[in-house]
């Protein structure tokens, strides 16, 4: 297995800048997820690394080798496609064996490897069948088996789970993670599903409009998003954002929001006071807001609009000043539309966004 | 554009076809034009054209061709439409029906002519049938070129043979109409006829247009059917072209006839493209 290095890669389609000045390094045996909304360039980037698209500018290295001008077959990669691309005219065995056959591997080695891959994916009994006789989930397994059967340096996956139904997707996600940990593959995985990204990746590269906005561990991307977009994109429900004005009163930094005042910790306060423009967005996730039934010091008053009981918890939409926020509460928390509640924000979990640029600020 | 990365693959794949069609399609066209409007010495002339228009055979051929087209095309359309709508009804054995209805596509116009000749000929099946019904006791000479009957026979033969072409285009068009539209019409009270007239036909307009153009262009070239049924008794434009080339050994006149056929084809295509557009506004 080996490292993937992408240096200053650009790819345009006509006038559309699909990938623009992207740098990326995937370490050996690392599982990196390319995450982003439709059209952000993640699939294009993956295809450039695979060699299915020619880059306009920049270089790509796989395992220290410059593969920029090489066709896919010379890059020592394996790939799982979104629609599986399992060859309909070949049996499952021949499908899994395809890469090995193209490498002219001897018969018994082919048999051995196909068998091993099939076992890992639990499709040993399907080897004689044709893809038309298989379900979608089974075909997907064949596609994965085909990819791990060969000695590829890196494994590329293009939204492999997106065509499965919800339940199957959940199962396959866990199975995939376990499998890839076991074979210790360097993997680059594309998805638009942020839950998948958080669950699977060692690191996530969040992309938008052809560029990588943040490249970090799932925890950091979740807790410390680099900007407004990422904060709103990751997490379900998306991060709440409140308009805030930074003021210094009596030597203390205070942020005025429509729903009340927030007092940041001193290091954050120092950072905020240095802003050229004092407008900020206070980002806070639904699970980091404590809901109190009675007025409490430091808590902001809000009115319940909608209560959605989701089984494991309640999702409550509240009117906080001029804005609406979504808050998680325990399942047995009773609330009625129109009721007044008090919200205490977890100060340490607030993500402070500079309104002018949309970038998140973190104290050094 | 980065010239080094210019992808020549598709052009390479297209090249043989472009060369071939240039050689065996475009060039003969130009040649045809040349033959029709030049003398043997290569001088531009309208003499051939004039000769064609004054030719006795021309008037007859034109009249016959036009009569055939006027009789055949509408009939075919109605029949093909009925056949296509029947397909929509989801009858048992539709698969077999679709196959049967498209069998004539495989039938040469010469074979079709011979077949209908066998029906209309003096000792043919039609006369035998009429005799068995007691309608006649002596064979009726249908293919007497002094009557209109040969025309009828030819019309029947062409309707029989070429309706499939229209049928296939219409069925494909019909199947591409989402059922939702028809079902919505039904829910909102449209009866069968209303559904056909107000929903299906307007949505079928592109297919109808394609089929009409295709069919008319083919109809202008009608050739072997006529000879098979009426022999020398009746001539059409394509036949005149053939005669002038083969028997009178005048490729110039033959080419002139060919150009005339081409002109009619293009004019009718143009007319249909216009007419069907306005018709749509009327239906809606």
């Amino acid at each position, binding site marked *: 297995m080996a490292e993937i290095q992408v240096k200053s890669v650009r790819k345009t389609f006509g006038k559309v800048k699909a990938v623009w000045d992207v740098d990326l390094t995937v370490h050996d045996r690392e599982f990196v997820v390319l995450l982003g909304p439709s059209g952000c360039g993640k699939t294009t980037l993956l295809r450039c690394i695979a060699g*299915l698209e020619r880059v306009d500018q920049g270089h790509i290295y796989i395992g220290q080798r410059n593969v920029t001008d090489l066709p896919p*077959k010379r890059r020592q990669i*394996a*790939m799982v496609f979104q629609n599986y691309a399992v060859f309909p005219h070949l049996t499952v065995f021949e499908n899994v064996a395809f890469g090995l056959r193209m*490498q002219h591997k001897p018969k018994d080695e082919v048999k051995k490897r196909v068998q091993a891959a099939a076992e890992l994916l639990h499709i040993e009994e399907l080897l004689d069948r044709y893809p038309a006789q298989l379900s979608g989930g089974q075909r997907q397994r064949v596609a994965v088996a*085909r990819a791990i059967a060969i000695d590829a340096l890196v494994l590329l996956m293009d939204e492999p789970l997106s065509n499965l139904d919800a339940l199957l997707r959940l199962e396959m996600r866990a199975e995939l993670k376990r499998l890839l940990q076991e074979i210790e593959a360097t993997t680059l995985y594309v998805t638009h599903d942020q839950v998948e990204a958080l669950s699977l990746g060692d690191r996530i590269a969040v992309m938008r409009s052809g560029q990588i906005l943040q490249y970090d561990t799932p925890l950091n991307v979740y807790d410390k998003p680099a900007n407004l977009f990422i904060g709103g994109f990751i997490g379900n429900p998306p991060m709440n954002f409140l308009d805030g004005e930074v003021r210094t009163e009596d030597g203390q930094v205070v942020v005025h929001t429509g729903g009340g005042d927030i007092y940041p910790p001193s290091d954050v306060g120092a950072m905020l006071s240095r802003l050229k423009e004092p407008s900020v967005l206070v980002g806070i996730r639904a699970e980091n807001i404590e809901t109190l039934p009675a007025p409490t010091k430091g808590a902001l008053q809000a009115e319940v609009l909608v209560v959605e009981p989701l089984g494991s918890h309640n999702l409550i939409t509240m009117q906080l000043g001029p804005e609406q926020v979504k808050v998680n509460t325990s399942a047995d928390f009773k609330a009625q539309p129109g009721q007044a509640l008090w919200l205490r924000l977890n100060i340490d979990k607030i993500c402070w966004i500079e309104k002018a640029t949309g970038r998140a600020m973190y104290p050094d | 554009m980065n010239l080094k990365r210019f*992808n020549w693959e*598709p*052009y390479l*794949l*297209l090249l*043989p*076809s472009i060369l*071939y069609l240039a050689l065996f*399609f475009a060039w*003969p066209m130009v*040649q045809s034009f*040349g033959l029709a409007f030049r003398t043997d010495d290569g001088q531009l002339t309208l003499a051939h054209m004039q000769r064609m228009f004054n030719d006795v055979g021309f008037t007859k051929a034109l009249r016959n061709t036009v009569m055939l087209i006027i009789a055949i095309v509408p009939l075919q359309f109605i029949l093909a439409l009925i056949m296509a709508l*029947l397909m929509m*009804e*989801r009858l048992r054995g539709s*698969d077999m*029906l*679709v196959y*049967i*209805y*498209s*069998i004539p596509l*495989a*039938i*040469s*116009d*010469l074979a079709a002519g*011979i*077949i209908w*000749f*066998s*029906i209309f000929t003096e*000792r043919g*099946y039609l*006369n*035998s049938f009429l005799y068995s019904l007691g309608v006649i006791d002596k*064979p009726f000479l249908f293919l007497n070129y002094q009557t209109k009957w040969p025309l009828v026979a030819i019309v029947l033969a062409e309707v029989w043979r070429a309706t499939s072409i229209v049928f*296939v285009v219409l*069925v*494909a068009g019909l*199947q591409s109409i989402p059922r939702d539209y028809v079902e919505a019409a039904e829910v909102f009270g449209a009866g*069968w006829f209303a559904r056909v007239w107000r929903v299906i036909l307007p949505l079928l307009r592109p297919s109808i247009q394609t089929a009409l153009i295709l069919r008319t262009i083919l109809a202008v*070239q009608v050739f*072997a059917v006529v000879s*098979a049924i009426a022999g020398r008794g009746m001539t059409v434009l394509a036949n005149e*072209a053939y005669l002038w*080339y083969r028997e009178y050994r005048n*490729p110039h006149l*033959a*080419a002139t006839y*060919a150009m005339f*056929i*081409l002109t009619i*084809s293009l004019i009718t295509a143009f007319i249909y493209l216009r007419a069907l557009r306005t018709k749509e506004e009327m239906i809606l």
Partner: protein
Amino acid sequence: MKQKTFSRRLIGRVLAYLLAILIALWILIPIYFITVAAFSPKDVIYSWPKSLLPQTISLETLLFFINAQYVLDSLWNSVKVALLTLVISLVIGAPAGYALARYIFPGKDVYRIMILSTRAFPIVILSIPLAVTFMQWDLYDKLISVALLHVAMALPTTILVTSSVFMGVSKELEEAATVFGCNRIQAFTRVALPLALPGLAASAIFTFVLSWNEVFAATILTIQNRTLPARMFVQLAASPIPFRFAGGFFILVPAVVFMFFIRRYLFSLWGITLK
């Protein structure tokens, strides 16, 4: 009220079936007649009235036809021309169809429109100048020249049909093949071609049938080496009726039989789905 609509519907249904069957009969009965005629002995063919059900079945007429001068030759010529047409149009047309299906490139629409517009041009207009040209090139009265003209007729359709066949094969499959070790040509031959084969075969057979049936060009371009329809046409007035019937039958049968075998693919090519 319910009963009224039910019986109305039933009548409608019955009428539909009746109509469908009537039309089917209208198509099949003439074919039946020519078959009966071809398998009738000569005296029956000349006799009148003919019984609508065959009384005697005999190979007399067919044998008379086959053994007539030049008939076997012209049958064989038809086969040769049709095969040549099939092969050439596929060899030239399929790559073009593949290019249309897989690539986006400047000029694609122009090319497409040009191909589509060839349908508007009658074949009549090609055969006469080509006859003159072929004479100059000493290609006159050769089977290859008929095939060349037939290819010109069939090529546009072949290109469009093969294009839709290849579009039906997912591009991802060829991409997967290149990832797993194939170059572009191998990806085509190992993955795209096998999957496109049924559609290509259907298109090829349809081209064969088209060439087999063609009369005008074949008659113009040949004198001695005629195809079957050309020979039949030229001799039409002079041939006795049994000869014509047998000839018609011979032209008819292979075409109808071939169409039967490829009907499913043809229908899917034209965009018709069978239930």
